[in-house]
């Protein structure tokens, strides 16, 4: 009951969206190759020649791999920038400049450098994801109340203690806000990579089915991509709940 009160409207909106979609298909005479019905779309799951398992596995690996790499490298870079101000002064501006390059436009280059396959697409997802994580984590690490630093310095806390006990845990809410932004970007990165060059994955599958105007299979691929994105986002929310929300820490 409590669950329904909290999430009832959200669930209703999702169900309503599918109903409206079905209704539009039923009441209008839009041909199925333009807009297939939800049911026609869902039926595509059973088509074994599509090899859904393989494509989901490939795209999933690219998304999660690129994302996890971005979190690890992003946090590490932020830590380095906080510990070594010279590194920060030197490389943070460069990072900002590099971030201005549309990562999607770099995809063709990655293909030349790395060939095509899972790894280059993972790298594309990584390059899109890493910047928000570096920025938010760095911000979180340096935003500490000056008096709190004074308080622990007065009892001779060393830099490592200040970092481990105050800066690092204090940066978590910031890290999670960056991780949420990046979770969405990771999906886009992986799919774009597949569009440009690949021989497997849901983005590749979309292009192949487009050639034969197989709209319902394309829609189903979109559904799977969305589900992969939701799985990633959901995991981040779950971790945020465990580390932050549960303790009543406002983000």
């Amino acid at each position, binding site marked *: 009951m409590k669950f329904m009160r909290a999430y009832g409207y959200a669930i209703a909106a999702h169900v309503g969206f599918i109903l409206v979609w079905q209704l539009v298909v039923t009441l209008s005479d839009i041909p199925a190759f333009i807009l297939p019905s939800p049911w026609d779309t869902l039926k595509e799951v059973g088509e074994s020649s599509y090899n859904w398992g393989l494509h989901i596995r490939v795209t999933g690996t690219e998304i999660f791999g690129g994302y996890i790499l971005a979190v690890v490298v992003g946090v590490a870079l932020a830590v380095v920038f906080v510990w070594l101000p010279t590194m920060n002064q030197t490389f943070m501006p460069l990072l900002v400049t590099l971030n201005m390059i549309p990562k999607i436009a770099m995809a063709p280059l990655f293909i030349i450098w790395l060939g095509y396959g899972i790894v280059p697409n993972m790298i594309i997802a990584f390059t899109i994801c890493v910047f928000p994580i570096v920025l938010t984590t760095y911000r979180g690490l340096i935003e500490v109340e000056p008096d709190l630093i004074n308080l*622990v310095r*007065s*009892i001779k806390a060393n830099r490592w203690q200040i970092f481990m006990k105050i800066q690092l845990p204090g940066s978590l809410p910031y890290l999670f806000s960056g991780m949420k932004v990046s979770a969405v970007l990771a999906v886009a990165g992986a799919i774009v990579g597949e569009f440009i060059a690949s021989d497997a994955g849901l983005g590749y599958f979309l292009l192949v089915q487009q050639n034969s105007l197989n709209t319902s299979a394309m829609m189903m691929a979109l559904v799977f991509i969305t589900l992969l994105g939701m799985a990633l986002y959901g995991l981040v929310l779950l971790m945020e709940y465990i580390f932050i929300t549960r303790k009543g820490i406002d983000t």
Partner: protein
Amino acid sequence: MTAPFIRLDGVRKVYTVGGKEFTAVQDVSLSVQEGELVSIVGPSGCGKSTILSILAELNTADGGTVEIGNEMSPFTPGRDIGMVFQKALLLKWRTIADNVLLPAEILGLPMKESRERARYLLDMVGLMEFANAWPQQLSGGMQQRASIARALVHDPRLILMDEPFGALDALTRERMNLELLRIWKESRKTILFVTHGIQEAVFLGSQVAVMTSGPARMAAHFDIDLPEPRTLDVKTTEKFGDYTRQIYHLLGLN
């Protein structure tokens, strides 16, 4: 009589901002006995906090002498300092009990004893039942009590308080003043209490150092002779009025 626990003599601090010298404090002299509660009162920018930061070794004096400790009570920098600020500065991701334990962790004290002491202190500041609560579940006054317990957990000889009740509403502030006197008596700590509040300074302190700004210096010093234990009734006595009136004059407020 034993030597004073704190001796400040002609203390001076100069900052250089953009090539220009700026005197943060000059000529501050103060002598505090162990176990005394001394107030430092003055307007913003008169260097009150600078004095505390020099005592906490967060800053060094540019002139004069600073001595803490005597033969009876040697003073160990770091180990013997407890600080309380205007903000409670509790770590949001730690429970109240774990917040209180922070200095013990940083100083590497034995945790079993420290936990017991934290429990004792939480009981003393009236937060026993909130030991496992998160800081953001507590009111401002309660958070400040927790931060006082934190300043006491490593059993330091000197507590430095920088406008600790400045952010609280008037009634909570009165209550916290009484609480502080009780905690001070129970813990027998030497406390330096910096405040904007003239009444608060006179009510709490056995001496009051008055500082003025522009130039930042110590303008006067009062030994406060008011009945002990101090209750809020003291504030209605003529003597209390005399002290506060003189300080108001010194600060140019009437």
